[in-house]
C-alpha cells in the first residue's frame, strides 16, 4: 500500500569489525517496511523506512533510530542519530585487519610531523608505553603500545613529515598489538 522496499537477498553474511570487535550480520528478510536480521546468531525483527534524503528510520527492539550510510574505500560509515561508526570488512584487504589480531604496526593517524621516536629496534615495550610523538593539528599526540610488544623496525625519525596511514613502527606480530592514544598529559 505504501510502496515496497527493495528486496535484496544477500548471498552471504557480511562480516564487519569495529575496533577490536568482529560481527557477523545477515539480512534475512526485507519486504515493505519489514526487516529481519541475524547478528552473531541473534535474530532481530524491525522496520526500515527509507527517507528521501538517503537516510532511513530503523526501528528494532522497540527503539527507533535515524540511520545514514556511505561506503568508503576500506570501510563503511554509518550514522545512527549523531553517533557515527566506521566498520571495516573482516579480511578486507588491509594489513591491519587480520582476524582476531590487533595491528602489528604503529600507524600515523593523520598527516603530521614526527617530533620524537622514543624506542629503538629490538626494544621490549610494555602496555601504554609511549613510542612516537607526532604533531598534527597543532597538538602533540603520543602513540603508545596497547599491550607488551617487541619493536621490529623503526620506520620514522624526528622531523619526518608523514602522511595519514604511514607505518611509523613495526612490532613483532602475534604477541603484540598497538593502539593510538592521545597524550595523557594533554587531556
Amino acid at each position, binding site marked *: 500500500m505504501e510502496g515496497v522496499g*527493495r528486496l*535484496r537477498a*544477500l548471498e*552471504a553474511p*557480511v*562480516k*564487519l569489525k*569495529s575496533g577490536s570487535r568482529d*560481527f557477523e*550480520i545477515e*539480512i534475512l528478510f*526485507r519486504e515493505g517496511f519489514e526487516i529481519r*536480521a541475524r*547478528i552473531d546468531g541473534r535474530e*532481530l525483527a524491525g522496520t*526500515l523506512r*527509507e527517507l528521501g*534524503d*538517503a537516510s*532511513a528510520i*530503523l526501528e*528494532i*527492539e522497540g527503539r527507533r*533510530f*535515524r*540511520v*545514514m*550510510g*556511505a*561506503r*568508503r*574505500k576500506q570501510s*563503511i*560509515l*554509518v*550514522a*545512527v*542519530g*549523531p*553517533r*557515527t*561508526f566506521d*566498520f571495516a*570488512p*573482516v*579480511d578486507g584487504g588491509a594489513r591491519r585487519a587480520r582476524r582476531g589480531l590487533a595491528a602489528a604496526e604503529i600507524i600515523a*593517524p*593523520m*598527516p603530521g610531523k614526527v617530533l620524537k621516536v622514543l624506542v629503538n629496534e629490538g626494544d621490549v615495550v610494555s602496555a601504554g608505553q609511549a613510542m612516537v610523538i607526532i604533531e*598534527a*593539528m*597543532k597538538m602533540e*599526540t603520543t602513540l603508545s603500545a596497547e599491550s607488551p610488544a617487541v619493536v621490529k623496525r623503526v620506520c620514522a625519525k624526528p622531523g619526518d613529515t608523514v602522511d*595519514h596511514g604511514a607505518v611509523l613502527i613495526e612490532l613483532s606480530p602475534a604477541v603484540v598489538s598497538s593502539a*593510538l*592514544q*592521545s597524550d595523557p*598529559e*594533554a*587531556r
Partner: protein
Amino acid sequence: MARRKLKVLLVANRGEIALRIIRTARAMGLRTVAVFSEADAHSAHVAAADDARLIGGAPAAESYLNIDSIIAAARETGADAIHPGYGFLSERPEFARAVEQAGLIFVGPRADVMAQLGDKISARKLAIAAGVPVVPGLEAAAPDAACEFAAREGFPILVKAAAGGGGRGMRVVESAEVCVAALEAASREALSAFGDGRVFIEKYLARPRHIEVQFLGDEKGNIVTMGERDCSIQRRHQKIVEESPAPHLSNTARDAMLAAATRLARAAGYTNAGTAEFLVDGDRFYFLEVNARLQVEHPITEIRFGCDLVEEQLKIACGEEIAPPSAPRGCAIECRINAEDASAGFRPAIGIVLDLRVPAGPGVRFDTHLARGSEVTPFYDGLLGKLITYGSDRKQARARMVAALDELAILGVTNTAAFLRDVIASEAFGAADLSTRFIEEQFSHWPSEDQALTEAALIAASLTASGALGIRPTEAAAQLTAADGADRSPWKALGGFELWKRQ
C-alpha cells in the same frame, strides 16, 4: 572621536567564523572580501564573500598567519578594514599594527592594548593593579624556580604559555618528578605554536569553574558588560560547552565579576569586544586572562541580549559610541562540534563530509561552514560547527540542545556530536554540577555499551554494503575522479572511494 566610513571589509580568517562575520557585514551593506589558503579554495567563506583572494599554501604559517599576504589582499581589493575573527592573527599586536600602518581599520583593540593583555604576565600585573583578584602563581617561570614554587604551594601546578590562549600551551604538572620535563615540553610547544617559548605557572585549583565576562569598549572610553558565560565544560583545557547565565552563581558574585571586568577593561584603555576570563571557586573568582578578540562562544551572549556582537565590533571600529545593551532574556547553551574521536581521548579526525543533516527548529542556531563535500583537513583547528540553543529557562535550552544534537549527523568526519548529546543529557549537567573537571569526572569512559544502537549500526552497515541504503559511489563518478584528481566535487570524492566488495 573620529567617525570612519567602512565600505569594504576583509575577513582574515576561515571556517564558521569567517562565514559568520561575512553574514553580518553583508547585512550591514558592506562589501566583503574573503582570504583563503590553497586547502580552502572551495570553502564556504570563499563562496559567501563578494570577493576572495588566495593568500598562500595550506599550512597556516603560509596563509592565515601570513601578514604580508593578507595586507596585500586588502590593498588589492580596496578593503577599508580587516576583521581578524578568533585564533590565527586575532591577538597578534604586530598584525594590528601592520593593518594600521597600511592605513586600514583593525577591528579589535589597539595593538599596544593587545600586547599588554596578550602577554599573560603583564595582564596579570594589570589585573592586580586594577584590584582584580588573581590565582597565586609565578611569572617567567624558569624550571628551578617553578619547582620551588610548586614545592611551597603544593602540586599540582598549571604551566601556561605566556603567549597562549584558548587552552593551548597549558599543562598540569602533578608531581616533582616530571616537573622539569613538563616545563620544557610546554616551552617547546609554546615556541612552536606561538613563536614565544616563555611559560609561567600558577597554583592549580582543584575543581574550579571557568566563567567569563563579555565587555565592549568604545573610543570615548565607555565600557559596557554583557553578562557572563560559564565555560567550565572543557577537554584538554579547551571549552566544548558554554552557557549563559552561569547557573548557581550568586548575584553578588556576578555583579562583582562584571565590575572587575569593567575595571580591567578601563585600566587597559580597551576598545572593541573583549572577554575577561575568571576561575571561580564557589563565589570567589580569580582573573585568568583577557581574550582581546571575539570569542568562539559569543553567540550565546547574542541570543540572550538580542544583539549582534560582530555588528557592535564594526560600529566601534568606525568610531561609533556603544549603545546600552538590552536586558538579557532566557538562557542559551552552545556546544562545539569538533572533528575528534571522543571515545579515543579526543583524537583529532579529518575527512570529507559525505552527508550532513543539520538541526533546526525554534530556538536553534547552527553556525557552520560545512556542506556536503566539505573537506576537513589536518591543517587547521577541527571546529566543525557550533550548535546554540535558546530557552526561556535552562531546562528548555537544555532539552532543545539534546533534541537538536539528536537531529545532527555529519557522515564522513568523526565528531563529538554524540558525545555532547550525552553530556548535555546527563544528570550532572542537568544539576549544573559544573567544573573544569566535569568531563574527566563524568565522561572518561564514554561511550557506554548500547547493544540496540550497535545492532542498528550493524544493520545499517550491512544495508549500506549491499547498496540498499545511503550514498552510493558510482562508476561514472569514479571515472570522473580518475580523469581529474584536483576537483573536490563530492561526487568525485565519493567516486574516489572504491566500491567496497562484500566477501
